[in-house]
């Protein structure tokens, strides 16, 4: 058994062999915004999810026009193969990939294992920031088929279709919002969306080298919790970053045709007046 769409995954060896390939752009996207400056894969460009991928005012992603500017400045053309990698088992690499797909970039891949594996293999990190000739990138209209808004979640609930909560067990149970020292805690209620099953995102990756688990293991993990390919699945976490990993796994590694990431996630649902919650 192999992954459903293995072309969405490359290994570190492939990346090392394509560092000079003009048709390939390596993009680092991290949870920690300083990691790229400390050292990155030679020739890789940086996309900071927090300062760059978000809308400056509204709670939303950057606009299509801003996305075109960003991607053009990174020297990415519409037919460039974009390979994402990052820290923390590719959390934010998956998030950036999801957003690139949201604006219609088709040729995207994740470097399996991310920074962790590249570092374990003692491959080079450099501090020099590369610059590439600007392109005239044209994005497509946002692809809402991969993004769930709160109304989609209500419809999902009404239709009794599956929801996957990918947060840690304590966030799922609602215990975590009661922890001390969260002066600006993002949600006023703890718990999870009713009927959502708990499958923490990290169960999809091998702790040792941050690579994805085997197709057999992944299938057993999700099908074992009754998350199956025949139907719509919505994944969520706190702000939609960890659930991007789950979205990637379900859509490209297992080949589920209809998977959405609910980026509003718990920081929206746990603050939403009149929304049902289970503990």
């Amino acid at each position, binding site marked *: 058994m192999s992954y459903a769409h293995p072309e969405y995954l490359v290994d570190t060896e492939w990346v090392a062999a394509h560092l000079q390939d003009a048709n390939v752009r390596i993009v680092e996207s991290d*949870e*920690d*915004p*300083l*990691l790229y*400056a*400390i050292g990155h894969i030679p020739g890789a460009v940086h996309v900071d999810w*927090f*300062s760059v991928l978000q809308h400056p005012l509204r709670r939303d992603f950057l606009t299509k026009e801003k996305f075109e500017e960003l991607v053009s400045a990174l020297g990415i053309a519409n037919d460039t193969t974009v390979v994402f990698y990052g*820290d*923390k088992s590719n959390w934010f690499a998956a998030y950036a990939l999801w957003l690139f797909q949201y604006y219609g970039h088709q040729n995207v891949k994740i470097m399996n294992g991310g*920074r*962790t594996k590249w*570092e374990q293999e003692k491959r080079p990190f450099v501090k020099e920031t590369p610059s590439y000739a600007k392109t005239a990138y044209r994005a497509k209209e946002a692809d809402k088929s991969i993004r769930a808004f709160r109304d989609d979640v209500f419809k999902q609930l009404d239709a009794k279709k599956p929801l996957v909560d990918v947060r840690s067990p304590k966030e799922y149970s609602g215990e975590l919002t009661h*922890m*001390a*020292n*969260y*002066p*600006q*805690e*993002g949600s006023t209620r703890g718990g999870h969306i009713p009927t959502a099953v708990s499958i923490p995102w990290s169960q999809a990756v091998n702790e040792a080298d941050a690579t994805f688990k085997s197709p057999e293991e992944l299938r057993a993990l999700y099908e074992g919790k009754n998350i199956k390919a025949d139907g719509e699945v919505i994944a969520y976490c706190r702000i939609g970053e960890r659930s991007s990993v789950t979205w990637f796994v379900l859509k490209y590694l297992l080949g589920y045709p209809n998977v959405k990431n609910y980026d509003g996630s718990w920081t929206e649902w746990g603050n939403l007046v009149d929304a049902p919650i289970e503990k």
Partner: protein
Amino acid sequence: MPLPQNLQEIIDMIASMSREEKLETLIAYAETLPDLPERFKTQRDQMESVPECMTPVFIIAEKDEHGGIQFYLDIPPQSPTVRGLASILLNGLNGCAFEEIVSVPIDFYHPMNLQEAVSQQRITGFTGVLSHMKQAAAKAQQA
């Protein structure tokens, strides 16, 4: 009680910086955070850990010969932002009296306007580090 002088100076300096300068300063603080001394490496299970951070952070404190508190931190190099933020606290609080340390308010970081440089989660981790430094200082004070 006013903030410890060193911490106040760091806050004032960072408050006046552009976003780019703030990021560069955080990197410099991250890169100059001292390694955990050998003598503490076997005691990691007795150190304060900071569960608010998604990064493993360990803190230990002891009293110096002047009665002030000295902190020692262990934070992996893969987390430069947490290292940078914690290093600011280390530089700002090392050698201070216990009473000064526990009096630092949880919102001390507001004037630095760090949210233009790092996400709210990182800042939440920052306040987590402070409160665990206070607890480590309390243990050192009682020892």
